[in-house]
């Protein structure tokens, strides 16, 4: 299930040539952009056919544009990718200011208000904009002692922007108690319950904000680690070739042909129960990236193989440059954009991996809050049948995966602006 996002991309990028053995497909190099060397090489497609003297301003611009401008121009054409980029930026915006966007203490439990359904926000008072909510009161049925909630429509609680709430440190440094929205009141029943509460009476909206931070940053950390592994091993494999290449390629093939989830589960389950949240966080990142680097490794190797034969690399070698200099100064700038695109596409994999593990109770554990940890409460049918809003974290998970995929897809298409797609 998790490998799917990774595989999704390959076939359309370079459609498999009929029945070429998939395992060796990466050895067949797309010849399309070979020969388009450095960033300062002239574009392969002349802006105007030789001979005809007429060029539109558009074409003239293309012939003098830098690679970065070309990438941007190409990326902008991709509408879905632009939308994806906006959503991704919004996600990280929320992640950075998670405490600011949360209006209630995400860990404050109160058994007296468990499973409050999502609350309706009234935006207008007649025709005047005045966002408010009605207070919610819990009542126990006198015979069954079951708790149910009634909305008191006679009273209104105005919803304010930049209201005061629980104290926190903005960006981890600035102590404050100002939140994006809130009622500014301290009594429990006068708070907001935008997405309702969970079994322990914790506010789901606020928990979602914090969970976004955890899940997105675990994705980032995981991707950073697999980037390191992928570039290192893929680079070695592509640059040196020969037996080293064969060994690393077989390793990647093996890792890709084993079902990943049981492997993750096995590794994650080995963590001692008494470890602190930080250590668990770190180990989960490690496990997730341990398997996620293979795609990056393949991409880097493919590009290395392709570029290694170029004249400018031979020239640098003849001029006596060391491998490290050739790799980082001469070759890296050429495929940096590809690496960035592949990295973006690897992020949703990491997010799904963390969510799956935490959902099964093998990843992050409470008191940590992540999408997977929140979804864990929605595991049994009783819970979701009675309080379906427990499934809400599904929405950001799917949204994030879609956005990252569209974004990465567009980046990958744009990464090679000379390639006629």
């Amino acid at each position: 299930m998790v490998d799917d996002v990774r595989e999704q991309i390959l076939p359309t990028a370079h459609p498999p040539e009929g029945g070429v053995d998939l395992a060796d497909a990466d050895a067949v190099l797309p010849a399309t952009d070979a020969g388009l060397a450095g960033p300062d090489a002239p574009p392969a497609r002349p802006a105007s056919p030789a001979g005809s003297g007429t060029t539109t301003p558009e074409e003239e611009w293309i012939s003098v544009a830098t690679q970065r401008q070309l990438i941007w121009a190409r990326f902008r054409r991709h509408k879905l990718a632009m939308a994806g980029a906006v959503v991704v930026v919004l996600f990280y915006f929320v992640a950075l200011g998670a405490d600011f966007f949360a209006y209630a203490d995400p860990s404050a439990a109160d058994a007296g208000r468990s499973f409050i359904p999502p609350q309706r926000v009234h935006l207008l008072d007649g025709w005047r904009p005045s966002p408010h909510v009605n207070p919610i009161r819990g009542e126990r049925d006198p015979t069954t002692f079951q708790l149910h909630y009634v909305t008191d429509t006679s009273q209104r609680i105005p919803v304010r922007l930049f209201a005061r709430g629980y104290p926190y440190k903005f960006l981890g440094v600035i102590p404050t108690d100002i939140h994006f929205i809130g009622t500014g009141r301290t009594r429990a029943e006068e708070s907001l319950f935008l997405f309702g509460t969970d079994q322990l009476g914790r506010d789901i909206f606020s928990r979602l904000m914090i969970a976004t931070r955890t899940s997105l940053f675990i994705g980032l950390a995981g991707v950073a680690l697999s980037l390191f592994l992928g570039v290192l091993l893929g680079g070695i494999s592509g640059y040196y070739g020969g037996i080293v290449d064969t060994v690393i390629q077989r390793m990647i093939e093996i890792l890709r042909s084993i079902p990943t989830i049981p492997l993750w589960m096995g590794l994650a389950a080995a963590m001692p129960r008494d470890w602190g949240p930080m250590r668990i966080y770190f180990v989960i990142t490690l496990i997730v990236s341990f398997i996620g680097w293979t795609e990056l490794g393949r991409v880097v190797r493919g590009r290395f193989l392709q570029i290694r034969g170029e004249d400018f690399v031979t020239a640098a070698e003849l001029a006596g440059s060391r491998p490290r200099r050739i790799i980082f100064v001469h070759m890296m700038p050429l495929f940096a954009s590809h690496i960035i695109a592949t990295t973006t596409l690897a992020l949703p994999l990491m997010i799904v991996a963390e969510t799956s593990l935490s959902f099964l109770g093998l990843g992050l554990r409470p008191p940590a809050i992540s999408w997977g940890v929140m979804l864990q409460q929605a595991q049994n049918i009783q819970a979701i049948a009675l309080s379906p809003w427990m499934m809400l974290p599904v929405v950001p998970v799917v949204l994030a995966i879609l956005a990252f995929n569209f974004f990465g897809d567009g980046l990958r298409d744009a990464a090679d602006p000379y390639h006629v797609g």
Partner: protein
Amino acid sequence: MLSYIGRRLALGLFTIWAVSVLSFVIIQLPPGDFATSYLAKLTESGNASAALEADRIRAHYGLDQPLFVQYFRWLGRVLHGDFGMSFDWNRPVSEVIGDRLALSMVVALAAILFTWAVALPIGIYSAVRKYTIGDYILTLLGFFGLAVPSFLLALVLMYFGFVVFGASVGGLYSAPFEHAPWSIAKIMDLLKHLIIPAVVLGISGTAQLIRIMRANLLDELGKPYVVTGRAKGLPEWRLIGKYPVRVALNPFASSIGFLFPQVVSGAIIVSVVLSLPTVGPLLLSALQAQDMFLAGAIVLLLGVMTVIGTLVSDLVLMWLDPRIRHGR
């Protein structure tokens, strides 16, 4: 051709060996050896000869030997079909797993069959009717299919199943068939229950396969032989079905190579959500109880099954595509 088969077989064997090492690592990872956890369990239940028993186990499994010796002894026992004891169930691992592994494979195969059955017509349709409303809608649906992790889809489906039918959609058998012997009626019941897991697990693979099929067929449709056929007056459906579709079909066979690990992998979590009697929930509970022989055996068996599945798909591909048969 023989050398190709040989290479595939060698790689398969090598992968199985790597899986066995990984499984052994998983067995070894938790702190303390399993005799210790067994000892703790026995002491808990008030067994007086617990220490003696633990020593006996240590000697039997060679826990006092160096790691690589332990590995080879474990491997030797596994090759004889002895996967060790499940300490949580207090029964041999092979007994605990029973027919769950077979059911796991049935679920995975059902998902792949679903994938093929759906992806083939839709892929052809999207390619032939390129850039029509239908193509756009199917492409968009495909994106969603790719983005939604299967266990979340299972969760949402379960909720709707509960709301609409008022009953749980989980499980693989209806209650009366749970412990009944195999019969036609039980198989029919099983097939009925297979639909939801197959759809849930197959959906992301379907989306991928549609994209592959569409791209491949689009490549073929513009080729001169198609134009020739059309110029000679072949009916359109016969022309497309007989020539370009056949050429574009090859990736279908090779897709098992990546679909299979993916489906087996996804089936673990989906089985937990839908409470299917496959190895998924068993693996989870084994890991939670640190019942490592059981967990290691499941990881190993799943890995081996996947490798065999991939190998079969490679051979099918070779049989289908003369370029591979004669290429090397």
